[in-house]
């Protein structure tokens, strides 16, 4: 019984010790690491500020282009395919997936931006471990944003391929010749 209590207390002590938690990897910060974070963190915050600004610009430009592609190109094309009584189910499905992934991208960016802003506002000299934790979280959230962008790119390529197939079939039907 006593051993169990001691083991529980030890586990609790380990749980509250200054560890940096990543999503899957647990990084143990030594006293030397913490001292280095205290020394370097202001410079790192300055670098992060620049990354934060350029990412905000990228988010703005990308979302603008995604919106144009979806509303001014994909939607009118799907409508036109339907009006011409062609089979555009696959293209419509890709458009739906595209819009969903764009929403996911915006959400992922929002989370990443909130975490980065928190890291920038943090007094890192007083809270080096929290700062490191926040930075690790921002890294994984940025990777999630990048992943959403990669999936969007795949969907854009997929729509292009589906469009080429539809065009080939439709032109073959009307002219009897492969374009």
């Amino acid at each position: 019984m006593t051993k169990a209590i001691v083991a529980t207390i030890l586990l609790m002590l380990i749980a509250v010790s200054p560890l940096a938690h990543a999503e899957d990897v647990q990084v143990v910060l030594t006293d030397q690491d913490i001292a280095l974070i205290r020394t370097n963190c202001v410079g790192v915050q300055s670098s992060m500020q620049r990354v934060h600004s350029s990412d905000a610009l990228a988010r703005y430009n990308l979302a603008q282009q995604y919106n144009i592609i979806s509303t001014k190109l994909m939607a009118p094309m799907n409508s036109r395919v339907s009006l011409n009584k062609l089979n555009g189910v696959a293209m419509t499905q890709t458009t739906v997936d595209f819009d969903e992934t764009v929403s996911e991208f915006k959400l992922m960016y929002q989370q990443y931006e909130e975490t980065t802003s928190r890291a920038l506002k943090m007094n890192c000299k007083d809270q080096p471990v929290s700062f490191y934790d926040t930075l690790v979280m921002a890294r994984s959230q940025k990777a999630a944003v990048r992943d959403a962008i990669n999936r969007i790119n795949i969907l854009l390529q997929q729509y292009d391929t589906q469009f080429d197939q539809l065009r080939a079939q439709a032109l073959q039907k009307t002219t009897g010749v492969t374009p």
Partner: protein
Amino acid sequence: MSDDPKLAAELSRWSQHRFVMLIVGVICIALFLVSAALSLYNNSGASQLDFSSPTYQDIRKQARRDTTQVDFSATGTLDKAAYDQFKKMYTERTGKVVNVNSFDEKALSEESLQLLVDHSTDQSVPAQ
């Protein structure tokens, strides 16, 4: 007016302070509406794209609305010309997003930020 003196006194007291109450009421409503608007502004993600904020001073000029006309009609026949027009517009537009290497994870990597690097040892020893 009421015949009841107590009620009359009460009404008179309220009427004396009604201007103050009006002001307090208006301020309360304004505070509520402003807090609701700020909450929407922050939670919707609009604040993160508000380049008027001093944080984004350096990139403000680079953020421009894309006013290029993209006119692909939702109606009409689909002939070769229409397919070619769409293909051209689609390729042009997707080229602006697919070939952009944004949100590169390396920008926040340890190699890039060097948070856990001891820079004091990097300093060269002055010549004797």
